[in-house]
Each structure stands twice: as C-alpha cells, then as structure tokens.
C-alpha cells in the first residue's frame, strides 16, 4: 500500500500580539492587573448627566429599601413579643387585651400554601405545553395572552370575579352554604384558588424561560437515545428547570403572602380563623379567616382595630416571611449553580 509522501505544509507561526496598553499609564502595577480605566471627565456632558442619574436611581432604590427595612425592624423589634405570635386575637378596644396575631399568621401560611399548590402544577403544565408542543400556534398564542391578562389584572378585580364565581351553586362545597341554598363564596379554598392566579404567571414565566433556554441539541440527544418526548420532558427537561420553577414559586408565594384585596373580599378578613362544618382540616379550608396583611390593615390607623403597635409587629413578621422567600429564591438559584444545572451554562457549550 502506498502512502502519499507530501503532507500539508505547517502553518507559519503568527506574529506575537501587541501587548495592550492602558490609557492613563498606571505605573508600578504588574501588567496582569492593568485595566482600562477611562475617566468620565473625558465624556460628553449629556453622558455625564446620564451616568450620574443612573447612580442616583440606584442609590435612591437602595435607600428606600434599607429605609423600609430599618424602620420596620425598629418598630417591629420594639413591639414584637413572642406572646403576640402565639396568642389569638380578640376583638377588644383595649390594646392590652386584644391578643396577638397567631391566627392571621396561620392564615398567611395556609393561603400561601393553597395558592402555590394550585398554581405550580398548572403553570408547569401550561409552560411545558407551550414550549414543547405549542401546536396549533393560535392556541399557544391564546394561552399566552390569557396568562398575560391574568398577570395584568389587578388583584381586586380578580377577587371580585372570584366572589361572583364561587357564589355559584356548583362551588357550594368550597365554602359556607346557608340554609336557603345561598353560597357564601368566601373561604380559604376560594381565596386560595384566586390567589393561585396571582402566583401562576410568575411560575409560568420562570418555567417557560427555563425550558426555552435549554438548547435544542439537548432534546435531540435524548430522542437519539430512543426516548419519547414524554420521557424527555419528565427526565431531562423538567429536572433541569427545577431551579427556575422553585424561583418562580418562591416569588409567587411572596406575592400571595403580601396580597390584601383577595383576603378582604374572599377570605372575610376576620381576626380569627372561623372553621366551617365539622370535618377536621376541611372545616378550616371551608372556613374564613384573616392573614397578616388584613390584620395589619385592620390594626392600622385606617382600620377598625386601631392598635398600631401590633400592626407594626405583624407587618415586621410579614416582611420577614417575604424576605425569607426572596432569600430562598437566591439560594435556589445558587444551588442550581452548584450542581451545574443552572440554565445559563446549558447554552454555554
């Protein structure tokens, strides 16, 4: 067997790259640390004004955020007592006798859980369908705009709509039904169902974004192994957007915990939990109650309770809950980075 004798000629070596020179000539630094440090004094005036305004905007937001936090912490720590958290509220004019906000705290936790438990699966299914199937296109677009409408609807409108909806006879099992057959329409179940609409767009958007950022070749790799589309979605795609889903869910929970309108209209915004019926557990869900938001509102100077100190304490606890959820969002995103699951790296290669 003959072997050709000539081989491709080797490439001539490239000339060395010129070393970058930093303007302003920072002397005495090792070349590694050299950086381009242009001075804004060389900028045009409009650019300089814009630059200062960007700084100012950022600083102002920082100041507002820290201001709220410090003020609430100051007031909260001042008035918050363990007894407030663990005792139920009572309707008393005298502040010293009106109890704590144990019931509203439970109410917040309960309504948040109900809302997110309803919202998450629906949002995941919808997002997965849109990204992975999305045919016919008009239906995908319709669903997309539907969710956009939900996201854009003010919560008070959602609440009113929910009230009308759940006062229909077929939803009688969800709330208190009077002897005449009139359906009350207000309960943890009905309020939670409407709250899920508050969280749904966030979980949906996060999931969709995550799925869209998974490059097509990951799906192809799975199909090429003889996997069905369903298996690919379940075993590859959804696991890799877990962090996105959790982030969306935590954000959605924050929104639910902070909502007031739906609580006032659909939960009754009562001081204590008022179970309905005698099936333990279900009676709580069918019953009405209040949350920290309605408690704060009631006890603020605007409400009837007028116990501003307790309002501050409850508001502080609410703030802590929402901050904890935001912190969780952060942690989830970062733990994704640790396992290499974060979607940004998916597209990196």
């Amino acid at each position: 067997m003959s072997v050709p004798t000539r081989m491709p000629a080797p490439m001539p070596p490239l000339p060395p790259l010129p070393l970058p020179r930093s303007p302003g000539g920072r002397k005495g630094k090792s070349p590694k640390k050299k950086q381009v440090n242009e001075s804004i004094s060389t900028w045009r005036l409009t650019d300089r004004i814009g630059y200062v305004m960007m700084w100012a905007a950022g600083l102002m937001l920082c100041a507002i955020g820290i201001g709220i936090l410090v003020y609430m912490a100051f007031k909260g720590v001042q008035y918050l007592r363990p007894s407030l958290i663990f005792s139920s509220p009572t309707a008393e004019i005298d502040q010293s006798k009106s109890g704590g906000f144990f019931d509203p705290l439970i109410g917040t936790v309960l309504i948040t859980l109900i809302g997110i438990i309803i919202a998450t699966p629906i949002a995941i299914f919808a997002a997965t369908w849109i990204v992975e199937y999305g045919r016919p296109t008009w239906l995908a677009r319709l669903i997309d705009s539907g969710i956009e409408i939900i996201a854009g609807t003010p919560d008070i409108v959602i609440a009113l709509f929910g009230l009308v909806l759940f006062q229909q006879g077929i939803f009688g099992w969800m709330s208190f039904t009077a002897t005449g057959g009139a359906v009350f329409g207000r309960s943890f179940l009905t309020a939670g169902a409407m709250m899920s609409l508050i969280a749904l767009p966030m979980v949906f958007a996060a999931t969709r974004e995550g799925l869209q950022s998974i490059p097509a070749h990951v799906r192809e790799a799975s199909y090429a192994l003889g996997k069905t589309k369903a298996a690919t979605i379940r075993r590859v795609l959804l696991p890799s957007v877990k962090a996105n889903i959790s982030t969306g869910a935590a954000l959605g929970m924050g929104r639910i915990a902070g909502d007031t309108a739906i609580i006032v209209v659909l939960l009754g915004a009562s001081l204590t939990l008022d179970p309905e019926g005698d099936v333990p557990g279900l009676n709580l869900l069918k019953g009405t109650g209040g949350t920290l938001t309605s408690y704060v509102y009631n006890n603020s100077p605007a409400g009837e309770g007028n116990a501003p100190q307790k309002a501050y304490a409850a508001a502080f606890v609410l703030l802590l809950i929402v901050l904890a959820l935001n912190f969780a969002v952060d942690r989830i995103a970062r733990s994704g980075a640790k396992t290499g699951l974060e979607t940004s790296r998916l597209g990196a290669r």
Partner: protein
Amino acid sequence: MIEPREQAAPPAPGSSEPANGTVPPPIRRIALDRQPTVALPPSQDAVAIANTSDRSLAAARRPARGVAGPERMRIEGLNVYYGNNHVVKNVSLPIRQGEVLALIGPSGCGKTTLLRTLNRLTELTSSARRDGMITLDGSDIDSLEVTEHRRRVSMVFQQPNPFPMSVFDNVAYALREQGAKRPKKKVLEPYVIEALQRAGLYDEVSSNLDHPALRLSGGQQQRLCIARALAARPEVLLMDEPCSALDPKSTNVIEELIVELRKDLAIVIVTHNLQQAYRVGDHVAFMYLGDLVEYGQTDALFDNPKAARTRDYIGGAFG
C-alpha cells in the same frame, strides 16, 4: 468473516449458532443481563503518537483493517429534502458490522443530514422529507417503532451534549426503559461503569460519579456522550464529527475506541479530517452537494480515487 456478536464468547459445544455470514439476531431492547459485547479498550493507549502529522506514522499505528461483517443497514436510493432544497440525492450505501464507514465531503454536502436520516432524527424537522429505502437488518426502518429504532441506531453529535445532570445519571438515563419500573441505582451501577469504561472515561470520573456532567472538559463530555450511546447497546453507532471539538489527545482516545468498537458495531463516522477518515475508516464515502460521488475501500479511495472531484478534494488535504 467476523464473528457475529452473539458468538463473541466461544459458542457452547453443540449450540445451534448460525453459520458464518448470516445476520445475527438483532437485539430488540436493552437487556441489562446481557454480557458485554464489546471488549474493554486496552488500558495502555498510544497517546504518544496521537498528534502525529506524519501520515506514514498515522497509517502505521492504525490497526489492521476491520473485516467486513454482516450488513446491518442498507440505504437504497435515498433522497432528503428540506423544503425545496434537495440535500441528499439518490444515495445508496451499505453499512456493515465489523467495519467503520467514514463519510467525507465539503461542508454543507449533506453528511449530517444523511446521518440524521439514518437515526430518523430528520423526522423532527417539519420541513424535511425523504424518500428511498433504508433497511435495518433487512426490515424497512419505517416499519419499526421510532424509539426502538433509535435505540438500535444510536447517534453521537458533533457538539458534546450531555444532559444537565450527573455523570452517572447521564449514562443511567440511556439504560432506563421508559414506562417500565425504573431500576434502582444499585442495579444500574455496574452497567453504567461498564459503559464508562468502554468509552475510556471511567478512570477520570470514577472518584465522583455524581459530578455534574456539564463540568467535565469537552473531551470528557464527548466520551460521556459515547458512553451514553453505548450503554443502550446499539447495533449501529452514528458519529457526526465526534472529534471536531476535541484536542489531539482526546481525539486519539476516541479513534482508538472507534477501532475497538467496530468489532461489535457497525459504525458510521462523519469527519472533515481526512487523515482521521484514513486512520479509522474501512470504507470511505465521498459526498459532494448531496451526491454520493465515490464509495470504496479506504486505501483504494485515498490512493487511487476514480472521480475527479474526489481527487480534487483529497488532493486538497493530502497535498
């Protein structure tokens, strides 16, 4: 005649093995209890001469040509269109076990499209149409269930594309049958390790199989993808420029692996590197603008190309 895969182990006396030359019974599904059909690659690798540009050395290190085994796939008058774009034109090729078929040709000539058609991945592209006949072990591939077909004809892509999960799960995913009860991790472990060993990756990842696959180097990722493809015990392995993103050392490891694997698999490799085609290919097919211009034994095609186009293309690479 190469032994069909079922005879890799010496047949039991008096067994009714088919005579040489008959097609061995195809493997219809992943059988976890099957003996490995592929020997482990030799531990000592010839990395030293990996990056040689000396063709005589490269040729010298190439193991003896594989012996053509039974024909596993046959392409007959295949045409593929993307919309009105006729991308693969009337191509007919045999794909045999025991040898490596190297597909070469300039960029855009339809090599990837041809491979994807063999794996039925083109069916995922809505604009793609194909006609002509492709058979796998004598039966039309369209008559097979598509997922089963893709298990038997596995594909490794140009870009390493591990799943965003651990090294272990990447390989285990290929092993798990969908729908059926999912085997436990303990049960799968030996098969995962074996697949990683066959792909020559195990030594590098054995300390931590839970390492995220996306944190491996490009070469390791590609070998992981090969391990993943091998884990399902395919009969035909399609490789689309598997080394284009790799350094010479990883390329060498993968070339060794390909040569090792061809005993038990039919392998089709697309490559832009003619020396690689020369090193690993037993047969070479040269495509140009969708046409199959020339197909022949590697030596014959490289030393004495019949078509002028082939001569031009090869001449451009080998001087």
